[in-house]
């Protein structure tokens, strides 16, 4: 993987902006890289970054340390920090060269007083997990894997790990003592969608990922969404798949993004929630980047949910 190192001038950590009317969880976003080399076809980064240059990984960890300390200083007794390190790049794709995860682990070890108040989510579509094995504070990390049916991975995520490999990586993470997160994201509407996700869940069950519910942090669902700019970019791109991706019924939502028509989204979520319930007793299921009324349409209550 080609990338270069640099120093970050802007802030590493910022409170995540969910968008108008979108249910938020109070997450902070940790930006340690300029872009993601995986280049998934639907990714919002295609609209944000011009991707003319190879990705840059920021390694001025002293600045990051300062920001983390400042953030922790402002914590009241009941406050918790949920740090998402997979928002603008895959969290594991630059490891172990970047050394970013080791830094976070060391930071938590040094600051024993805030240990219980911080949780870091590493989100990935790779199976590059060897860097996680020796982490000391395993209970402070959530290793989330974006999971899609293999047909979707083949079409739209060509540089990522296969479904089988991702689930095996999850299995290893659980064995090493991590709790893992399932992120069914983005859910792309296709004819046999529930059959496809059934296969995914069956495979996950085969790998015994649901055997110990406490080792599953949460299950997140989110349908495909686009910014207007990204839609235009996809239309102009030469991939053979834009027709299938954009030919669905997308409508503008309160936060300015385009999503499937409400009835379609609700139907997908309800179907998948039912499927998940068949395979596991894990009830920490949430919708990512959806307004309250979609949660309600699906029988979920956002006020009962916390990521921490």
């Amino acid at each position, binding site marked *: 993987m080609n990338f270069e190192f640099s120093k970050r001038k802007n802030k590493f950590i910022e409170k995540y902006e969910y968008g108008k009317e979108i249910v938020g969880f109070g997450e902070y976003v940790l930006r340690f890289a300029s872009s993601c080399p995986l280049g998934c076809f639907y990714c919002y980064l295609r609209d944000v970054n011009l991707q003319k240059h190879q990705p840059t990984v920021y390694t001025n960890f002293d600045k990051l340390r300062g920001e983390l300390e400042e953030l922790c200083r402002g914590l009241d007794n009941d406050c918790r920090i949920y740090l998402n390190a997979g928002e603008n790049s895959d969290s594991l794709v630059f490891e172990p060269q970047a050394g970013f995860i080791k830094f976070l682990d060391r930071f938590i070890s040094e600051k024993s007083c805030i240990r219980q108040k911080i949780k870091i989510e590493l989100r990935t579509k790779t199976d590059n997990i060897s860097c996680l094995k020796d982490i000391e504070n395993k209970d402070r990390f959530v290793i989330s894997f974006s999971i899609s049916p293999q047909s979707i991975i083949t079409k739209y995520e060509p540089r990522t790990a296969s479904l089988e490999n991702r689930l095996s990586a999850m299995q290893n993470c659980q064995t090493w003592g991590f709790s893992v997160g399932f992120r069914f994201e983005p859910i792309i509407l296709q004819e046999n969608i529930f059959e496809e996700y059934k296969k995914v869940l069956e495979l996950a069950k085969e790998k015994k990922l649901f055997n110990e519910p406490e080792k599953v942090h949460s299950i997140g669902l989110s349908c495909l969404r686009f910014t207007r700019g990204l839609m235009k970019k996809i239309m102009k791109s030469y991939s053979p798949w834009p*027709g299938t991706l954009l*030919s669905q019924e997308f*409508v503008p*939502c309160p936060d300015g993004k385009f999503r499937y*028509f*409400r*009835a379609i989204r609700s139907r997908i979520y309800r179907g998948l929630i039912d499927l998940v319930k068949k395979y596991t007793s894990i009830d920490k299921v949430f919708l990512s980047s959806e307004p309250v*009324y979609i949660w309600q*349409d699906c029988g979920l209550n956002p006020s009962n949910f916390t990521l921490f």
Partner: protein
Amino acid sequence: MKQKNFSLGHIFKMAYFTKTQRINIKRWVREILVPVEAEKILKDEKLTPHQKGDRIYKLFYSTRYPELSAAQEKFKKIAEKIFRNTGARIRLADQYFESNQIIVEPKEKIPDVEKFRTDLESVINWKPVLK
């Protein structure tokens, strides 16, 4: 996907569309199979170019957005029924249903409109808030 023997120029020549409608139709013909009924509408000599334009636009819209257009049609019918029965006009705060609000005018008619809540909820199984 385009159908064989289909010409956008032919449609634009035979039927009248606004500028926005033309832009939308140009986009949609790249995304859908043009319905065969379009040719019938164009050939109908009883229709004016404006009527042809309206019908073709509606046809293309319902082909491109089958679920959304069906829900909008259903809502329209319920709104008409409510207006006939109560004199209240209802409309969606957002035509894509991305809101739980239904605007009722005049507001004093709200209690009557409440009777149609079940009808409204049947559109897409939601819990609308009447405003």
